[in-house]
């Protein structure tokens, strides 16, 4: 009897969920969870404006002024600065082998690599760098991703990743150190500098993507969600054969 009532409740809930969805599309396995789409789109426009008028010009200037070798050092420096957070999250996800690689990478590059400017770890044969963050750890722990969010200035996220971004900001040893010596502005400057550095390497790619997209917002949303899923499954370029990709993707309805 109790089982029946439970089954009835489940069917009722499923029906309600069906009604709450977009009718016919609710059973689409590729439907996106974006209830705040209108707000998100408005913020996306704002971010694009900031990108067009501030970030891209800064990235282009940076590319013109600083030679390739210097930009590589900057990229290495920021990557090394992110490594402690990767290490913490490797450990939190129980990835001991990857944690070991991350730890080796961190001390080699911080010491012999002159504070991270040189990637001597790769030279010494340490496996290529990977990144982990709290959003990925939460996912590994079973936290659902929640609604898609377009964050002002920070870009695409979902509820889980937004919490992860905040956790990463406050748990970062470098940021904590700066806070402790009354240099609270440094973590923000770091964020801006990192954005310029990253953007300087993908200007053309995103420019073309934007021009050839029919709905750029939807394209970015799709790319972000798929990329995050792959990151959570630890499918990086360092694993050439790739891990199994979630099944059921071939060309069927």
């Amino acid at each position, binding site marked *: 009897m109790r089982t029946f009532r439970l089954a009835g409740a489940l069917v009722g809930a499923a029906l309600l969920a069906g009604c709450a969805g977009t009718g016919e599309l609710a059973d689409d396995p590729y439907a996106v969870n974006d209830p705040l789409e209108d707000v998100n789109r408005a913020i996306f426009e704002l971010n694009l404006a900031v990108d067009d008028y501030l970030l891209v010009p800064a990235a282009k200037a940076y590319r013109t002024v600083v030679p390739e070798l210097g930009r590589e050092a900057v990229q290495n420096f920021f990557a090394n600065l992110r490594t402690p957070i990767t290490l913490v999250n490797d450990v939190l996800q129980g990835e001991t082998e990857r944690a070991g690689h991350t730890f080796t990478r961190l001390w080699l590059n911080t010491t012999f690599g002159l504070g991270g400017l040189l990637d001597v770890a790769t030279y010494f044969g340490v496996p290529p760098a990977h990144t982990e963050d709290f959003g990925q750890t939460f996912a590994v722990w079973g936290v659902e991703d929640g609604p898609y969010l377009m964050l002002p200035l920070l870009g695409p996220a979902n509820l889980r990743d937004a919490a992860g971004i905040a956790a990463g900001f406050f748990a970062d040893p470098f940021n904590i150190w700066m806070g402790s010596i009354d240099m609270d502005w440094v973590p923000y400057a770091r964020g801006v500098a990192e954005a310029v550095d990253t953007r300087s390497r993908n200007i053309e790619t995103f420019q073309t993507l934007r021009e050839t997209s029919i709905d750029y917002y939807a394209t970015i949303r799709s790319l972000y969600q798929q990329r995050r899923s792959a990151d959570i499954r630890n499918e990086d370029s360092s694993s050439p054969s790739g891990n199994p990709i979630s099944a059921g993707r071939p060309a069927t*309805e």
Partner: protein
Amino acid sequence: MALLRLLLVFVLAAAPAAAAPDPAGFVSELGDKTLEIINKRPPKEERDRRFRAVLHEGFDMQALSRFVLGPHWRTATEQQRSEFVKLFEDWIVSAYGERFSNYSGEQFKVTGQRPESESVTLVTSQIVRPSGGPPIRVDWRVAKAANGFRISDVVVEGISLMVTQRQEFASVIQRNGGQLEALLKVLRERTGQ
């Protein structure tokens, strides 16, 4: 004996010109052809023509169209379906031709293959960039077809191009009152028809 020879000729003639022995070989050939187009940088018209030929050789546009439209394929009329298949192909040729034009000097190598289901094989490959940096991982879902193989999806660094396309198109349709016609209209405009 003569009959046997005749039969043999028939069988050989029926086989596709470039019959690849296995999915990996099939992808390798297609990848090389695509890269050749990208690296030679022919004028747009020729690029599009050659790119379209590769598309016909490697992809089943009908099946891909059905996938990217998802639930909207079921409700589409026969006329809408056939127009979409055509527009989708034209659009892929121009949009992806453009997206590829940022690349030059890349090298492509197939790194392995493994069965994913009874009819689908996952072929893994890498694109090595001339600028150095980590190689780009590209996985290909290859399905057996009547004559040879057909690609059902291309997955770049974990991002499925077909899923991306499906979600973008779904968004366009959804934001226009669920009308497939709205998507067809944009595609017509984008492909100059």
